[in-house]
């Protein structure tokens, strides 16, 4: 059988890769991809904990939380990409540093 901490280590590694991408990536679409990677890492953690600790008790909260994260990820991707396309149309750029019209 696969030990639980293998899943947790994989999720931690995936989360750290995503975090690195979110902070350092210049392209806004790349930032969005990295955010999706971080959400996937959280999903792996939730499902692994649910499977190993709660699947016998009939407690379904872990699975419901994963469904909600799926929906939030889809909504976030749709709104984020719409904003990127809208900004690209006005400024002809997707570089996050150059979209600064709200800067004080």
């Amino acid at each position, binding site marked *: *059988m*696969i*030990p*639980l*901490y*293998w*899943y*947790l280590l*994989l999720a*931690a*590694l*995936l989360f*750290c*890769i*995503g*975090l*690195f991408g979110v*902070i*350092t*990536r*210049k*392209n806004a*679409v*790349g930032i*969005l*991809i*990295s955010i*999706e*990677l971080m959400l*996937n890492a959280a*999903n*792996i953690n939730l*499902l*692994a904990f649910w*499977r190993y600790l709660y*699947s*016998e008790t*009939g407690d*379904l909260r872990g*699975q*419901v939380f994963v*469904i*909600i994260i*799926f*929906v*939030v*990820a*889809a*909504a976030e*991707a*749709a*709104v984020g*990409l*719409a*904003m*990127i*396309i*809208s900004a*690209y149309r006005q400024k002809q750029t*997707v570089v996050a540093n150059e979209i600064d019209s709200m800067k004080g």
Partner: protein
Amino acid sequence: MTGMQLIFLIAAAVVVSSAFMSVTSRRMIHAALWFVLALLGVAVIYALLEVSFFAVVQVLVYVGAIAILIIFATMLTRRALEDHGKQFNRATLMTLVIVSVIFAGLVFSLRSWPQIQSMTAPLSADQLDVGVLGLALTAPDGFALPFEVTSILLLAALIGSIYVAYERKEKKK
């Protein structure tokens, strides 16, 4: 080492390496395709956890919808940063340090939790039935309220993204 562990290690290696490639690759379309590979690897991880419903949903929602959306956005926003300029901002080295510290902290906190080393999955095939989840999602004493709230969130996001991305003809000069 059993077969399951071998499959897990292969899938984990695919996930981590393709995630790394999708974060670091120069062309955005390559990053999006590596991202698809990482998502498929995560679906394999879900299948190993015996939550096959989520493996299918992962392929449908992430690979089928979100990745396609990202590929479309990449194609609509071409000629940005593709061959010229740096892909990363000035904080790369600092971020590498921060991320390594966070990862080391996570590994340390896992190490200091002794009962996690011996934990194995229980075998309960009847609890993994997807019908139980469906009933719980719609039952009034279950998760009906969060379910409806997420559907309202999805509707709001749909309307909002159409409004934001809509090209207004009269305002264009």
